[in-house]
């Protein structure tokens, strides 16, 4: 992994944007942040927020609505997405870990892989913890893990100083071709460690999270606790939409003119009352408590951790921010530890 010194991240951004369609998180003037396309001519400074954008990179690969096939009245035709080379610029470590998790889950999914393989990922180390984040406890951050990104931006500790840039993959190294970059100063690993220690201290020990995971896997949480949590679940799907690793979907079939038809798949949520309901009316997860338990078992269950070699939660804290019933990750873990 070669380390370079970068005078201005905008220079790298313009270089990459000249090769590919580039996306970066930008404020929307209403207090929000969104992924937006940035051209190679763009003159805005790269000023990443320490707060995560409301939506991770999930929808870039796992489309919220994806055409699967068409039927013309006689034959079925596969539909794969039209992809253009793209780059996601400035992804935080947690969101990159989520992409790595979904890369495994969707390893055999042609639609996901078509989008994913056309994408260069540029990570960004965090200098400070975002509000409510706990990546340091789950091992998904705050430093970008080399195997999850193609390039990694290392912000300077002091404004005005040079940035660091790590080429973390062959594709990342190749994308730098034509940029005249000097090697980084030898102290960049120490700077990363200092950043990591700072974020870790800001996030604290997160005892509820650690103890909650343990109790969940010991099956030490009784049904009444889950049902009490379920009472606060509105089944709104906010958590599953913003969760960067949630991957459930449902088919949507539609007739078209002259005997034609198509099937799309759309994001679904295991917290919906009808998620498992069968045509007979039988519902194996009929209560909200059962569904809340399922969601968190999927995130923190040991079977899943072993299968993917990491938890299904990356510690981004988005569910805490979006849940109207205050049963995001911290709300739930506090309740199961101190019912």
């Amino acid at each position, binding site marked *: 992994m070669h380390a370079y010194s970068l005078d201005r991240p905008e220079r790298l951004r313009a270089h990459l944007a000249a090769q590919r369609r580039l996306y970066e998180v930008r404020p929307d003037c209403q207090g929000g942040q969104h992924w937006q396309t940035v051209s190679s001519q763009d003159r805005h400074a790269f000023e990443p927020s320490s707060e995560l954008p409301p939506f991770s990179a999930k929808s870039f690969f796992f489309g919220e609505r994806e055409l699967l096939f068409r*039927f013309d009245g006689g034959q079925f035709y596969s539909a794969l997405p039209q992809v253009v080379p793209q780059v996601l610029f400035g992804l935080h470590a947690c969101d990159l870990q989520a992409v790595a998790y979904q890369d495994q889950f969707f390893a055999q*999914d042609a639609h996901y892989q078509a989008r994913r393989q056309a994408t260069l990922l540029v990570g960004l180390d965090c200098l400070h913890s975002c509000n409510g984040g706990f990546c340091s406890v789950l091992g998904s951050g705050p430093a970008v893990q080399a195997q999850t990104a193609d390039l990694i931006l290392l912000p300077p500790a002091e404004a005005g100083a040079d940035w660091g840039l790590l080429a973390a993959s062959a594709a990342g190294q190749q994308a730098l071709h034509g940029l005249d970059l000097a090697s980084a100063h030898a102290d960049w690993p120490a700077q990363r460690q200092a950043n990591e220690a700072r974020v870790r201290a800001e996030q604290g020990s997160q005892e509820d999270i650690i103890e909650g995971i343990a109790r969940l896997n010991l099956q030490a949480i009784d049904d009444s606790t889950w049902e009490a949590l379920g009472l606060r679940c509105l089944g709104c799907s906010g958590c599953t939409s913003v969760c960067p690793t949630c991957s459930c979907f449902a*088919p949507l079939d539609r007739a078209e003119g002259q005997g034609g038809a198509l*099937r799309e798949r759309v994001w679904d949520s295991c917290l919906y009352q009808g*998620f498992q309901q069968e045509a007979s009316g039988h519902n194996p997860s009929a209560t909200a408590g059962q569904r809340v338990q*399922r969601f968190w078992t999927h995130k923190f269950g040991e079977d899943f951790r072993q*299968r993917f070699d990491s938890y299904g939660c990356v510690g981004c804290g988005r569910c805490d921010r979006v849940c109207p019933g205050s049963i995001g990750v911290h709300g739930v873990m506090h309740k199961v530890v101190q019912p």
Partner: protein
Amino acid sequence: MIDSTPRRLHLLEQYEDGEDSRHFSLRIEQPAASDLAAKAGQFFMLTLPGVGEAPFTYVSLPDAQGCFTALVRRAGRLTQALFDQPAGSVLGYRGPFGHGWPLFFNAQPLLVVAGGCGLAPLAGVIEQASRQAMPARLSVIYGARHSGAQVLGRERARWQQTLPFIETFDQAAPGQRQGTPLLHLDEVFAAGPPAALLCCGPEPLMRASAEACLQRGLRADRIWLSLERRMHCADGLCGHCYLGSSYVCQDGPTYRYDRYLQLLGRSSPISQAPPALFC
């Protein structure tokens, strides 16, 4: 890579086979080697273009021409629309999916317990046993709400010629056996304790049957259930058919009972209300 695009499937004919159920003859266009290797207890996904897709079990497995049969119970919009399709309609097919039944026909007696349309996933096993040169010692206990709710009429008439086949009803007519299949277990065990149980029906019936056989000395690793779950992708991705950390479309639908309990997070028997419902 997964291709979730269906292949063409031809509807050859359909006939009534129990109230609200029909027996479909279907033909896969250009069957693949994997179609011909389908096993009893596996399932396929049937698409009615523009309406939807759902899983169904094979009653008879695909032959060299791709022809097979399936039982469909009317339960919703898709199955109603399927009933309305004329012979010759072009449908969509994906499969086979999941794991079928363990097949071991030897000198040891086997017990099949089925409830309602749960007989359909077991049809291949019963059929195979009934065709053994020296009939395998397979006994069937088949429960249904009443005689009109029974399925696979033509097959049952054939099986009853070669196998011990007990039929029992929630609402029995005079001369018929009354009650759930559990009430008739002792009779089968008295004739010779079975070496294994294969069971399909409503989940409460399967659990109760498994527990009743455990109480009669059958080990949990000699009991298999076929689970029903809502399935959409059949590729282990859409998330709907979860059973603990397992996806029924990939790891099931047949589960050994000890594994089933483990996935539910239970090592001990499950207390259940007596099963009364047949699908």
